[in-house]
């Protein structure tokens, strides 16, 4: 994964120092400044096709071409750090203040904890990270602000790493990947992006359009599949999604396909019958395979502490092997993955950083921690 260069961090820090100095500790104005500059930064980076787009096949081909250009152009630019600019600034505030005051007083730790909470890491998890960082700082006699910063990074990485490493996506042919999650987190897009990764690696991919519930859910999958250049197995809207899974595996077996990516309907984890439907699909797939399918839970980076419940209950319906954290190109921090990791030990596999096919990157805990602090 490629991140923006260190120089950038330095300049951010500097500009923040200035803000902090000139305006004292007016939190609101610091926040506003950082939002403003994050906006202007993002805009200067963003290059997006504008004007009208149609959804005819021609329009799509054009869109596809544009997409490739965007992802290849921006591959050096678009990374986790770009998305985390704002959050990094908020999390850095205690450090900036400490740097100004040239000392770490007790309020520093409270502020650091607050900053973590504001990144959606959750109350308990934030307290734990601060405690761990404190241990490192005191235990190792850290004196410099940078050393404290490093201590926080280490504490974050430790929190993520207890979750273990995401499993390899290579396995028995065909490898069936269930993409699940609540409504609107970006499951279909994630399916397409995953498919694109495999496809570029020279693997054979088919999509199972198992979102038979949502209006035009199947069409959406089909359009993405066309862009990836992989076939789709589909049924009628309102059909049995388990049957779609069954058929797609049959077809994969017949055509020695490497990956079957199952796009499931968005469902709130509180809907019992829908979760049962999901376990049924999972069982159906399991019976057709030598091994078992892989479960990928998609979590929107803007999700709050409810993400922990989502992960817990989805894990009861099927085996959640990894999390894909989407929409990290906004200002959201996705700190809920820390809370999820702490409680449920589910590793993060990928992060979504944009709308292009190539905008799914492997998750690197060290880089994530560095992007946060």
């Amino acid at each position: 994964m490629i991140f923006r260069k260190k120089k950038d961090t330095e300049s951010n820090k500097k500009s923040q120092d200035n803000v902090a100095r000139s305006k004292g500790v007016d939190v609101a104005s610091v926040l506003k400044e950082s939002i403003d500059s994050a906006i202007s930064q993002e805009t200067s980076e963003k290059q997006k096709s504008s004007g009208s787009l149609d959804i005819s096949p021609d329009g799509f081909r054009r869109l596809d071409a544009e997409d490739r250009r965007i992802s290849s152009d921006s591959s050096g630019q678009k990374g986790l750090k770009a998305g985390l600019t704002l959050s990094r600034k908020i999390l850095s505030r205690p450090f900036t203040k400490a740097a100004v005051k040239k000392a770490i007083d007790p309020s520093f730790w409270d502020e650091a904890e607050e900053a973590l909470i504001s990144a959606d890491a959750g109350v308990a998890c934030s307290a734990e990270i601060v405690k761990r960082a404190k241990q490192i700082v005191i235990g190792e006699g850290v004196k410099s602000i940078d050393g404290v910063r490093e201590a926080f990074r280490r504490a974050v990485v430790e929190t993520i790493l207890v979750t273990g490493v995401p499993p390899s996506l290579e396995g028995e042919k065909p490898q069936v990947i269930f993409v699940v999650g609540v409504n609107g987190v970006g499951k279909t897009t994630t399916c397409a992006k995953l498919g694109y990764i495999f496809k570029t690696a020279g693997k054979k991919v088919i999509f199972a359009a198992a979102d038979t519930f949502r209006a035009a859910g199947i069409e959406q999958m089909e359009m993405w599949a066309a862009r990836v250049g992989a076939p789709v197995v589909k049924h009628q809207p309102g059909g049995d999604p388990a049957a779609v899974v069954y058929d797609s595996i049959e077809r994969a077996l017949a055509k020695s396909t490497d990956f079957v990516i199952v796009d499931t309907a968005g469902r709130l984890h509180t809907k019992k019958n829908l979760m049962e439907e999901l376990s049924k699909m999972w069982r159906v797939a399991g019976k057709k395979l030598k091994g078992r399918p892989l479960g990928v839970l998609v979590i929107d980076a803007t999700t709050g502490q409810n993400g922990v419940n989502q992960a817990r209950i989805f894990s009861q319906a099927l085996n959640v092997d990894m999390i894909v954290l989407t929409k990290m190109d906004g200002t959201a921090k996705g700190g809920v993955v820390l809370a999820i990791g702490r409680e449920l030990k589910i590793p993060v596999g990928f992060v979504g950083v944009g709308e292009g096919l190539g905008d799914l990157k492997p998750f690197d805990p060290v880089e994530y921690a560095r992007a946060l602090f």
Partner: protein
Amino acid sequence: MFESLNDRIQNVFSKLKGRGKLSEKDVEAALKELKLVLLEADVNYRVVKMFVDHVKKRAVGEEVIKSVTPAQQVVKIIYDEMTEILGGSSRSLNFSPHPPSVIMLVGLQGSGKTTAAAKLAVMLRHQGRNPCLVAADIYRPAAVEQLQILGEKIGVPVIHFKHKSAVDICSLSVEWAVRNGHDVVILDTAGRLHIDDEMMQELLEIKRNLNPSETLLVVDAMTGQEAVNVALTFLERIEFDGIILTKMDGDARGGAALSMKTVTGRPIKLVSIGEKLEDMEVFHPDRVASRILGMGDVVTLVEKAQKTMTEERARKLEEKIRKQKFDFDDFLEQMQQLKKMGGLARVIEMIPGMGNISRLGGIDLDDKRMKRIEAIIQSMTVEERRNPSILNASRRRRIAKGSGTTTQEVNQLVKQFAQMQKMLKVLSGRGSLGTFKRLFPF
């Protein structure tokens, strides 16, 4: 929605209520806990601080501590403050005096704009308006189709122009709406990141061209601390008049709901509470506050009942109960009413003091069980429904077979029904049958 928040707050309250007198320390300890509860519920940390400070200021005063029921006073203060941060009273949508009124929905990707647009159309039609929908999301694959399918389902026209920009689609659609006599035009715009300058520009242009009477920000109720940043940026760039909270039927603790009004100064106007296209409601801050604090929500319950049950039918039922002629047919009808009101679980939630029952003791209030009961009753003959006492073993076996259930289940239902009849007898003996019994003969 709000259940788990309610649980946690009840805990805090019960510690307070256990004491006769309250010291300042007691209040402070309770507030500290309340602060944690709210933070865990994703309420913005600055809003939490403000909220707790307000409550503290009012709660540690002389009057409260020396009053006869200090705990209740504190609860009352918390209720007041919570109603306040939720927005005070409910706000209705703005309509233009010169139709058509344009309602524009904006928000992040995946917040639920398209579904909300369809639900809003259903709601407005119930209010006697003639809405149409505009598919202005030209970016996401199959977004236009999604709205078209939804429009077909609810019988509301969906307007779309191929090969046009979103700005043009919206302008052309409003012209079309005028020609075709629609008084409300709902614009379903594409989801966009609040920091995407170009996309925000597009919204601004649509807004400038059409001057919508109502711009609504659609926010996912599960959003965490980020909700505030998103809302603030949308406010700064394009301005909006109100908020629609979606996915309220999950188990999110509703932090976004509690932060929005305070931070943006814009009220939550509507909430979306289910998968069905009728599942949109007006947001009532006072009722939500009382639901969060475990005080139930009778007002909504009564309103819902009135919507699903006519005066005449209610009278008939009441008479039947009084004459002790309440039979399985009435039971079935009641159950179907209940379904229309959003299912047993949702109804129970709104009854004061009953909010916790569905989670206590693990009673399964699943609609699935209701379906089985329905099947059992529908497998009875007319005579059996009227007079359950003739249900002997052989009849019960037949019913179980016919409904695909077991004899045990049939037995259970018959027993429960007998108990219920007894209970109704007692209730009706007391004279007036209040709204409660009319609604809720279970």
